[in-house]
């Protein structure tokens, strides 16, 4: 069964009616180090932008700036577009380490962002809906510690979808998982994103994930991070195969671009650790 089947989740608006994210001249420094510099990017409504780059290039920082969790030193992020009435948090995060509250059951974790907005019954209906969608119905009462990493990130995405977001910011959502789980979840998340119709920024350091999930791939340089290339993948996301030679060629091209940067970045990190 693919999660992409079934009716669309209500607030995602396909056909270019969702949110458009525009980054203008974003720059950021941290402890005297220039982390990001002169970044201009646009994510079209309902599209997925995959953001790749060598370790330490500031991908996650850039995502934090887009989500309003980090104040940029320069530039501005704008969002424009219509948002459905039942959207409780237009720009919503999915975290690398899941960020689940260990003292809340799966159900209560998913309910958390709804609590300030919805009465109990409405909350329960929405939670049940996203739990079913993510295949968590049987685990609703489980504690997070009882779940595998993959199941925990399913809770993370269920919680994000529960607020009916217009934009999803996904920060290496699969990097804490093993390779097999990553493959399975990538399929599933691609379907869920498509069905939600959200504008999505997907940060990853795994190039195969980027070419599999993105309408566009933004390739960043090593620190100070800039957008080195913006590649469009003209192929419907639904039906992309890992073995597709065009995608493999794209992956090789990106790797060629960042290989030297990645090697330098790795050495720099060792230097920094000394």
């Amino acid at each position, binding site marked *: 069964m693919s999660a992409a089947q079934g009716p669309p989740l209500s607030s995602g608006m396909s056909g270019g009616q969702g949110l458009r994210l525009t980054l203008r001249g974003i720059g950021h420094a941290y402890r005297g180090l220039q982390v990001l510099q002169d970044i201009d990017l646009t994510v079209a409504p309902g599209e997925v932008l995959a953001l790749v780059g060598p370790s330490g290039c500031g991908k996650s920082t850039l995502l934090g700036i887009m*989500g309003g*969790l980090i104040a940029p030193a320069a530039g501005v992020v704008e969002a424009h577009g219509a948002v459905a009435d039942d959207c*409780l*948090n237009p720009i*919503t*995060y999915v*975290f690398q*380490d899941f*960020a689940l*509250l*260990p*003292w*809340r059951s799966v159900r209560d974790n998913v309910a*958390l*962002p709804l*609590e*300030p907005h919805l009465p109990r019954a409405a909350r329960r209906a929405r939670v049940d809906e996203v739990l079913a969608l993510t295949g968590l119905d049987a685990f609703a009462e489980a*504690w*997070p*510690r009882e779940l595998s990493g993959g199941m925990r990130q399913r809770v993370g995405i269920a*919680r994000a979808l529960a*607020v009916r977001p217009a934009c999803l910011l996904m920060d290496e959502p699969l990097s804490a998982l093993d390779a097999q789980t990553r493959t399975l979840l990538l399929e599933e998340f691609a379907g869920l994103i498509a069905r939600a119709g959200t504008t999505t920024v997907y940060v990853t350091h795994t190039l195969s994930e980027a070419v599999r999930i993105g309408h566009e791939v933004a390739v960043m340089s090593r620190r100070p991070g800039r957008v080195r290339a913006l590649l469009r993948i003209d192929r419907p996301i639904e039906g992309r195969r890992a073995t597709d030679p065009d995608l493999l060629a794209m992956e090789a091209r990106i790797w060629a671009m960042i290989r030297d940067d990645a090697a330098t970045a790795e050495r720099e990190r060792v230097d920094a650790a000394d």
Partner: protein
Amino acid sequence: MRRIDGAIAFRGGGFAPRARAWAAAGTLIGLVALWQALEMAQLVPTLFLPAPLAIGRTLWALTVSGELWKHLSASLLRLAVGWTVGTVFGIAVGLAVGLWSALRSPVMAVVAALFPIPKIALVPLFIIWFGIGEGSKIATIGFGVFFPTVIATAGGVDGVPRGLIRMGQGFGLPTWKIVRSIVLPGALPAILTGFRVTSSIAIVLLVAAEMIGAERGIGAFILAAGNLYDMDALLAGIVVLSVLGLAVAWAIGVAERVLLRWR
């Protein structure tokens, strides 16, 4: 060169001590039995240490006459009110210290300066401030409980993973909701550990609190017995305090199991 033949011997294990409830109870019972035996063999003069049976008889007499309950109920009320006051203010201040930079350094400086002061030394001051009645007794216990609670709570708040707080902010949760649903439950294990410390402190301070002007109370009872060199009554009172301490520790253990069952 040498050959190796045969099964590989197990060499792991150990370094994992386990709690054995029967061994704990057995040790205590054994010690009391040994003590009684020494007294009965007249190896220890009862003037220096009364026998367990004599203490037991005194306790029984105190229970039957209602004297024990008269003292215990007065002490329990002081403990409950003093501990609750100290804990409520301590958690509130600890939270504030853990959340706001404007308060952190000033308050922690004051806490660090006042925490090590023996509260017994402050009893005369509390009597001038709060009177010789219940006020000074509750204040003594409350002050003793307040400072460790501030430290435990602030430490607990510091220990809440920042990622969880960023998550709450990423979902646009209002500050009160982040405090209530993320910070407080996240700090709860540290706060409960603090309770273990503060409940003991409260019991220790009970004797100091009941030094001045208490007609009843276990602490007042112990002080009076000590003053009269009534060793049976003195030790009976100490046994009551000890049992009280064990009961409170047990209750906190139950609270931890219930509130922290997610661990």
